């Protein structure tokens, strides 16, 4: 099944087709929620809400953007709304990456360590910057698409990308002693 077929079938009320859409995008949509909320349970709840909203508003999807961009924008808005609600009420502590901060030594080149280091570097960024850079790198969204998702201006997105990239590289360079970072200056 491809994306267009899935959307058509969803609009006809085919639940299985929506299951396909969810399976395709659930991890990426969840990542958007997690970047905004920084709390696993809240993010899972927001992801679920986002998929419900998306299904209920699928008729509004005009195909002017990628389905992924449309889903991410719903997820982003849902998570931000949840974040505001949370801030008004009980303040939930931000979840740092699970596990202790990686204590990198010379052989810290395992993928799991790199992932931990990356999670740590992302956690050190402000919420909006973390979301923007994740959308750019992991979700492979263009600046224009990030503008659509977040509602930020293009120049603001570029500034955030530049700033958070620099900050992450600094953090990661301190954590990962690998030649990976030597191409930073290129």
């Amino acid at each position, binding site marked *: 099944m491809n994306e267009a077929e899935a959307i058509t079938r*969803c*609009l006809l*009320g*085919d*639940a299985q087709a*929506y*299951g396909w859409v*969810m*399976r395709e995008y*659930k*991890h*990426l*949509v*969840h*990542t958007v929620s*997690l970047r905004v909320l920084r709390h696993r349970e809240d*993010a*899972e709840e927001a*992801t*679920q809400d986002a*998929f*419900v909203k998306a*299904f*209920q508003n699928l*008729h509004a999807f005009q195909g002017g953007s990628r389905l992924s961009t449309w889903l991410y924008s719903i997820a982003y808005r849902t998570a931000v709304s949840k974040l505001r609600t949370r801030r008004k009420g009980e303040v939930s502590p931000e979840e740092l990456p699970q596990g202790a901060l990686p204590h990198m030594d010379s052989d810290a080149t395992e*993928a799991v360590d*790199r*992932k931990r280091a*990356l*999670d740590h570097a992302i956690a050190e960024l402000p919420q909006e910057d973390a979301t923007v*850079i*994740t959308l*750019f*790198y*992991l979700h492979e969204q263009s600046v224009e698409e990030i503008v659509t998702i977040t509602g930020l201006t293009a120049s603001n997105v570029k500034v955030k*990308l530049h700033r958070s*990239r620099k900050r*992450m*590289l600094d953090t*990661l360079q301190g954590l990962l002693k690998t030649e*990976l*970072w030597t*191409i*930073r200056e*290129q």
Partner: protein
Amino acid sequence: MNQNDPLRDLFLEAGPAQAAAGLEAAVLAQLAMERVSTPEKALIPRWAWIIAGVCWLALIFLPHPGAFPWEMPTLPHVSMTNGMRWTLGALACGVLLFAVDSMLQMRATRFRSY
């Protein structure tokens, strides 16, 4: 930011965060529950019944203002053949059924099966 960006490599290697295993089932269950818990609106809304009632009363009282239902005046007599009555009745039924069908279609939710 070029394709050889180390951050890009790291992000792609790490991949996305894992969503909850039962997400699809939870979403479909929530959609089904919301559909069940949404009360169906009456086919003909209350305001339409009120307007219909007012029109009916107006039909009775306007020819003779001040009259009571039990003093209902003789309504104008329209002479028509039996065939004409059946034709008009059939037409009226057809229009009524078409209107009901259209209203039901308009009110039908787009997503029926989940």
